[in-house]
């Protein structure tokens, strides 16, 4: 402990870019008399894009680096996760500009908070030590609570934010308690040291406290990915928050938390597979069932997407339950495509007005818009079909790989539940398509019904990229598949 090596700062260059640009934007907002919101959002997007470029540059080396005395690790698994997080954050921040202005949320603090949340997620996925993992988790959590409460004048927003905050704080407590139990057994917070301590003991002699600690950590992470029974906050937060902020809260953080979930279970705790896999199977099944059935009666579009997200996370957990590198690969493919579908769907919602001029709220708001905006409706329909898992769209392949991994690991029941619930879930995805294509325009529509919000260039770009990925995935699946394979290989299970 006494010898000191200068840490390798080049490995955390993307993170440092985020920190310094967030601070710079804050300083600008504090000291310059006139700062346009547009300018600071653009700066934030630029910073995210820059660190995304750096991560892409560092990817595909097949090497593993450890720095900061083993607290930070970089390998292909982590680079892939970082690329997903940064790409998602860049897309969400850039497309949020027009509707943030429309909803009177043009505050200079918004882009720095998004940057800090992204930084927290990066720290989460690259942490090789429970201490850094906890700091990353809190950093993103705290920024997200503030983002959720940004619209403080509205009662529903305050309710959603408070719920999110209190349940999140509770999850934090569970997480810390879990870590302390694991530390109490192994005397270490570093993942590799914990793994080696577990390896030297015989599995049967491991104390109950270690499992309890692991279960607490899993419960906290299940809260972050909104797996049933820790999902209560999701529909409320999705519905209550302004749409651009929902697009951020519901998309990237779940991917980051899921990656951490996968990494923790498959890397230091893989020897306890026999203990945790039944829990993951339960989380996965319950999420799929609740996600499918609870969404059937929703009329609010964002609430429906919240339940849909719960169900989708159930499918991802199926890949985790497989507990091998095939499962890890399937998880990565699923997460990539899910992020694309999610961001694409929200880009569609962000470009339309509904009953209120701020944006679409209910399924009714989409009635008959196919005649008004054929292209936009087509793209939204593509995302809905893809979320439902209809071939040959990307979402189908995402589900296919997860089912394949589950069947290869002989989790037949899980796969059967997955197939059945995806049939049920298809109903409500198709309900949205029906509203757009087969329902007539309402006889006395609200004045803003079916009108476009100001479409920014960023939204158009994001929409087109997302639609292209989903539509063309079946032609070039190897791009994502190989990246996911490389990432799963870095786990060395």
């Amino acid at each position, binding site marked *: *402990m*006494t010898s*000191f090596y200068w*840490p390798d700062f080049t490995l955390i260059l993307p993170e440092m870019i985020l*920190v310094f640009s967030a601070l710079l934007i*804050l300083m600008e907002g504090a000291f310059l008399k006139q700062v346009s919101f547009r300018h600071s959002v653009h700066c934030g997007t630029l910073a995210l894009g820059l660190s995304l470029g750096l991560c892409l540059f560092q990817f595909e080396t097949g090497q593993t680096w450890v720095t*900061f*005395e083993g*607290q*930070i690790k970089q390998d292909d698994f982590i680079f892939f996760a970082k690329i997903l997080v940064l790409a998602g954050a860049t897309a969400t921040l850039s497309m949020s500009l027009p509707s943030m202005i429309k909803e009177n949320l043009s*505050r200079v*603090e918004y882009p*720095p*908070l998004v940057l*800090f949340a992204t*930084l927290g997620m990066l*720290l989460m996925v690259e942490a090789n030590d429970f*201490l*850094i993992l906890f*700091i*990353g988790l*809190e*950093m993103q959590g*705290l*920024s997200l*609570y*503030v983002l959720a*409460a*940004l619209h*403080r004048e509205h009662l529903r927003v305050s309710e959603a934010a408070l719920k999110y905050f209190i349940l999140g704080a509770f999850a934090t407590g569970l997480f810390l308690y879990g870590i302390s*139990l694991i530390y*109490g*057994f*192994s*005397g*270490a917070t570093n993942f590799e*040291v914990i793994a*080696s*301590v577990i390896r*030297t*003991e015989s599995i049967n002699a491991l*104390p*109950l*406290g270690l499992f*309890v600690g692991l279960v607490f950590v899993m419960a906290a992470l299940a809260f972050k990915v909104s797996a049933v029974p820790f999902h209560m906050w999701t529909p409320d937060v999705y519905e209550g928050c302004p749409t651009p902020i929902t697009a951020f809260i519901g998309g990237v953080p779940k991917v980051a938390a899921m990656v951490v979930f996968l990494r923790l279970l498959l890397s230091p705790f893989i020897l306890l597979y026999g203990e945790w896999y039944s829990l993951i199977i339960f989380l996965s099944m319950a999420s799929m069932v609740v996600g499918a059935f609870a969404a059937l009666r929703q009329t609010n579009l964002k609430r429906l997407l919240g339940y849909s997200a719960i169900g989708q996370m159930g499918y991802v957990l199926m890949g985790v339950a497989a507990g091998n590198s095939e499962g890890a690969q399937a998880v990565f493919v699923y997460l990539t495509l899910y992020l694309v579908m999610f961001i694409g769907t929200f880009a569609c919602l962000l470009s339309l007005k509904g009953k209120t001029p701020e944006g679409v709220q209910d399924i009714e708001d989409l009635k008959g818009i196919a005649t008004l905006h054929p292209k936009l409706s087509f793209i939204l329909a593509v995302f809905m079909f893809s979320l439902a898992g209809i071939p040959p769209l990307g979402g189908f392949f995402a589900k296919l790989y997860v089912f394949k991994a589950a069947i290869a690991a002989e989790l037949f029941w899980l796969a059967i539940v997955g197939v059945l619930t995806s049939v049920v879930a298809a109903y409500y995805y198709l309900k949205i398509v029906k509203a757009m294509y087969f329902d007539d325009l309402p006889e006395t529509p609200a004045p803003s019904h079916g009108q476009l919000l100001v479409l920014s260039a960023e939204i158009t770009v994001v929409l087109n990229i997302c639609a292209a990925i989903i539509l063309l995935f079946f032609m070039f699946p190897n791009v994502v598949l190989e990246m996911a394979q490389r990432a799963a290989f870095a786990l060395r299970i």
Partner: protein
Amino acid sequence: MINIAPILFYVFSGVLLSASLMVVTARNTVHGVLFLIVAFFNAAALFLLAHAEFIAMILVVVYVGAVAVLFLFVVMMLNLEGGEMHRGIKGYTFMGVLIGGVLLVELLLMGLSWYTAPEAFDLTTAPTSGLKITNTQALGNLLYTHYALGFQGAGLILLIAMIGAIVLTLRHREGVRKQNIRDQQERQVRESLRLIDIPSGSGV
């Protein structure tokens, strides 16, 4: 000569325990906070007995000096009545006791079968062993050298908390008069004082 350290330990921990008990049972919340301060002082003394001077000092400076005094202000400002806090708690007694009981049994089950991996003893030994440095220095080494990343990260979290507090509470209200010191000091006599000639007998 008798060793007084064990006696001191029992005195301090006895006072600590009874003060903590008073914190949760005191009817008057202000008394509760004052007992909390007593508990902090005794915990600091226990740390001193364990040769952890730095933590003892920090406990007094941070917890007694800042946190407890802040609590005291909050409690005094809110003017909480003893009875009001406990109203409606009766309905939850059964569930509370049930959940607490289940958790207690779980903790006992866990604690009774507890064992620590033999490697853990080496991993958790204090890094100062064999080195002749004070524990302030040792903690500084840990915080600013070995765990510098975590330290900076914690700093950023505090910054986020500050931004959050400002974002969620700051309101720009119209018509609020703010003091502008520069304007005040640059004021000239002729800007503020006007001499008017009023002919006598005409009134203002």
